[in-house]
């Protein structure tokens, strides 16, 4: 399964490994899905992980970030979006769609409410689709992984 994951979800799973999102990181570690990422996606992730407020409160440092990035590079696949997508008001969420489309993703895992409210995202029964790529919540993703 080829998946784009919201960076915020990944950081939450890292900070609180016993939380409900933890299985996503564990399953990535076990190579149960391929994480699609771009340079900008990685940059965004690093920006969050560089926040002093998070580092101080949740006890992580540069070497921890390196350990996470090493895992992402091991289990992930870089994609290089060429065609900008602008269907959502949030540039970050447009970029998630660009990665998903370029990388032929099986799913985009997002908590982004803006994205799910975008008119171009078709609501199909309980799923939301963008160019036939399902946009799913973290909980749905974990159910999908089984």
């Amino acid at each position: 399964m080829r998946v784009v994951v919201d960076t915020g979800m990944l950081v939450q799973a890292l900070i609180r490994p016993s939380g409900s999102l933890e299985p996503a990181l564990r399953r990535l570690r076990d190579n149960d899905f391929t994480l699609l990422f771009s340079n900008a996606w990685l940059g965004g992730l690093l920006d969050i992980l560089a926040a002093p407020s998070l580092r101080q409160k949740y006890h992580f440092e540069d070497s921890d970030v390196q350990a996470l990035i090493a895992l992402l590079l091991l289990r992930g696949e870089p994609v290089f979006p060429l065609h900008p997508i602008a269907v959502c008001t949030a540039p970050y969420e447009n970029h998630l769609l660009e990665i998903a489309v370029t990388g032929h993703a099986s799913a985009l895992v997002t908590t982004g409410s803006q994205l799910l409210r975008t008119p171009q995202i078709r609501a199909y029964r309980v799923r939301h689709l963008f160019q036939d790529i399902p946009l799913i919540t973290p909980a749905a993703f974990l159910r999908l992984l089984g």
Partner: protein
Amino acid sequence: MSKPIDPPQSPKACDDAADRRPPHGLERDGKPEVVVIPYAAHLRLQEAQKSEILGKFDSLLRRLDEQNAAYSEEEVAADVEKARGG
């Protein structure tokens, strides 16, 4: 270890490279740049690197799990969103 050589192109060159102890080195401008090693050794190195990455990641999760267990998921989510500028 490093000596300028031509890239191995024949089966014999491959045999020589595979048997060579220490391995062949290729230089650029007098500085070592590439080492030719047997493919099996390359696979062993890759496996060792993978194990090291997974081991460090497992340690990281264990430590953060212990240190951050007291925080609720809602609190973490709010802090992450704030750090993202949301």
